[in-house]
C-alpha cells in the first residue's frame, strides 16, 4: 500500500533454529486471529519448521536458539553472510537462555551425566551475538507474539525498532497485581526489561528475568532490597542465573 508516498513492502524473512526448544518460532504461528494479516507482512523464504520450501535470498534472518556445537557456528556464519539484517530471536539467542546453565559444569561431566560416556559433541552454550554481529534482539522465553508483530510492523514501515526501556514492575502494576515481594517471594521484575505485559507476576509466579536487564538498572539497590526483606540470596542468584541475562551483575554481586 502507498502511504506517505512510499510503498510498504513485505519483508523477505527466514527463520532458523539452533539449540533450543523452538518455542519462539512457534509463537509466529500463534495469535491466530491476526495470523493472516501477519503473514501478509512477511514473505517467508525459509522456515523449516512449517515449510519445505527453502530459498537463500532473504533480508531478515530470525535466529532462534543458542550455539552449542561447531557445525552450528558455520551454519550461523552462512546465515549472517546472506542476511541483510540478523535478529536474535528469543532469550536463548539473546542471552544463551536456560542452555547456559550447563556452562557451570565441565562439559565432559555434562555429557557423562546424560549420555553415559558416549562421544557426543557439545561446547559451552553461546549467544548468537558471541559469534556474529546481531542487528536486533527480541528477548523473551518465549518471545511475545504481540511484540514480534509490533517489531515486524516497524520494520515494514521503516521505523526504528525499540523495546521498552523500563522494568516489568510498570506493567505488573498496571495489571493491578499483588507484588510478589508482598507475598514473600523474590521477583526479578524490578530489574527486568518490560514488554511481556508482566505475564509471570500476573500468573502469581516470580519473574525470572527472561527478557534480560532493563536499561540502566540499579542492581545494588535490588540486591539490598532482597537482603532488607530477609529473603534468600541463594534464591535470588538462582533466579538471576536462570536465563543467563544477568551474568555481569551476578559477578559484580559475588
Amino acid at each position, binding site marked *: 500500500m502507498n502511504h506517505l508516498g512510499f510503498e510498504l513492502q513485505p519483508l523477505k524473512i527466514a527463520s532458523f533454529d539452533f539449540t533450543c526448544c523452538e518455542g519462539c518460532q*512457534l509463537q509466529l504461528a*500463534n495469535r*491466530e486471529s491476526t495470523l493472516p494479516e501477519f503473514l501478509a507482512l512477511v514473505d517467508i523464504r525459509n522456515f523449516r519448521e*512449517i*515449510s519445505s*520450501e527453502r530459498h537463500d535470498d532473504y533480508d531478515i534472518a530470525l535466529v532462534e536458539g543458542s550455539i552449542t556445537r561447531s557445525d552450528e557456528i558455520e551454519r550461523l556464519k552462512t546465515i549472517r553472510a546472506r542476511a541483510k539484517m540478523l535478529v536474535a530471536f528469543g532469550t536463548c539467542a539473546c542471552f544463551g537462555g536456560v542452555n547456559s546453565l550447563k556452562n557451570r559444569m565441565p562439559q565432559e561431566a555434562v555429557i557423562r551425566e546424560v*549420555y553415559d560416556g*558416549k562421544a557426543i559433541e557439545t561446547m559451552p552454550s553461546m549467544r548468537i551475538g558471541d559469534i556474529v554481529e546481531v542487528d536486533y534482539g527480541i528477548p523473551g522465553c518465549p518471545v511475545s507474539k504481540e511484540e514480534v508483530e509490533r517489531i515486524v510492523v516497524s520494520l515494514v514501515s521503516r521505523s526504528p525498532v525499540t523495546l521498552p526501556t523500563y522494568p516489568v514492575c510498570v506493567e505488573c502494576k498496571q495489571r493491578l497485581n499483588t507484588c510478589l515481594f508482598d507475598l514473600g517471594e523474590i521477583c526479578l521484575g524490578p530489574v527486568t526489561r518490560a514488554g511481556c505485559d508482566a505475564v509471570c507476576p500476573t500468573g502469581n509466579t516470580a519473574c525470572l528475568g527472561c527478557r534480560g536487564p532493563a536499561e540502566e538498572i540499579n542492581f545494588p539497590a535490588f540486591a539490598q532490597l532482597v537482603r532488607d526483606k530477609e529473603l534468600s540470596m541463594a534464591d535470588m542468584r*538462582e533466579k538471576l542465573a536462570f536465563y543467563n541475562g544477568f551474568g555481569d551483575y551476578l559477578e559484580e554481586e559475588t
Partner: protein
Amino acid sequence: MKRKLDFDIDLHHLPRVEGHGNIRISVRDGRLAEATWAVVETPRFFEAIVKGMSAERVPFLTSRICGICSISHSLASIRALERAMEITPPETALTIRLLAMHGETLQSHALHLFFLAAPDFLDAPSALPIMQSHPEIVRAGLQLKELGNEISTVTTGRCTHPVSLVLGGVSKAPSRELLLRLKTMIAERLPALERTTEFFSTLTIPQFVRETEFISLRNGSAYPSIGGDLVSTDGVVRDEEDYLRMTNEYLVAFSTSKFTKVTRQSSAAGALARFNNNFGLLHPRARAAAAAFGLEPVCHNPFMNNVAQLVECHHIMEDAAMLVDRLLDADLLDIRTAFKPKAGSATGAVEAPRGILYHHLETDDEGKVVKADCIIPTTQNNANIHYDLHALAEQALAEGRNEAETEKLCVILVRSYDPCISCSVH
C-alpha cells in the same frame, strides 16, 4: 523388461517437523540396502542442568525442553516432585491441570494436522498456499488451534511455557469471567471441528501395516492424561514407577536421541497408542468420528495416527467443556497446598500430545534435585519410525514405486508420528 532401481534418498533436516532429523534410504539393484531415521539435534543436557536446582523452579526449567508440549513437561516434573515430596494438590488445581493438558493437546494436534501434515496430502510445500486454496479449512484449523491456545492461556497464564503451574497446585486460578468465555468459545468452535473432520475424510491415507506394540497410560476411569498405569497392546501392565522397564533406553550410533523397546523390537506411543489402549474411554462423539474413518483398535497403520489425533480433538472438545463446568462450580480459592521440601524420588508420567512422557526426579532434604531422567515420547517412537521406514521402503519397492514416490511416502510416514525432535534430544 524392468530396469533394476538404484537410488539414494538423503533428507537432511526434514522440514515441517519440530527439530532436526534425517531420513536416509538407499536402494541398490532394486533391493533396499539401508533405511535409517537419524536424529541429529543438538543435545541440551537438561538432565544435567536440572541438578542442584530448587524443586519449585524445576517445572519452569523442564517446560523449556519443548516449545510445543511445555505444559506436559511442566506437569510431568510437577507430578514427579509432588509424588517424591508427598504433596497433595487441591482438587480444583488438578482439574485446572487436566484442562491445561487438553488445551495443549488441541493446539498441538491442530498445528500438526493443518500446518505439518495437511500440506503432504495436498501436495503443497506448506500451509501458506493452502490458505489461498482452501481458506475455509485453514480458518477452521486456526480456530481450533486458537481455542487450544486459549485454554492453555486461561489455565496456565500463557500458551507456551506455562507460568502458573507450580508444585502444590496452581499459583492462580482462572477467573469466572474467563471460564465463561472459554465455555462459549468451545461451543462456538464445534462446527470448525466438524468441518475439519469432513475435510480429512476426503484425504487418502496410505495403506501400510507393520505390527508393533502400542504403549500408553491407562487409569481405568478416564481417557489418560496425567498419571496412571503403563500399559501396552501386548498386554503389559506396569506401575508408573516401573517406567524404566517400559522403555529400556539404548543408544544407537547414528542418532543423538536414544531408542526404546518393550517386548518387541520397537514400540510406539502417541495418539494412536492412546486410542488403541483406551478406546472405550473416549467420548461417544469421538468414537463416532473414529468409526467414520474406519479406525478401530488395535490399528497398526502408523499413518492413521493423524486420524487418531483428530479423534482425540473430538474427545477434548467434549471433555474440556465438562471440565470448565466443573471449575465453574469449584472453589477457585483453594488451589495451592503449602509444602516443605524433603528428600524423595518418584516418576511423573503424563500423556503429552505425542505420547507418554516420563520425568523421574530425585530430591534431597532441601528440595534440590539430585538426579533427573526424562524420557520423551519421540524417543519412544524413534525405533518404531526407524523400522517402519525399512518396512515401508520394502513395500514401496515391491509395489514398484519410483524414487520420488518412495521418498514422499517415507516423509509422510515420519510426519505422521508428529515427531518432536528437539524434545527427544533434551
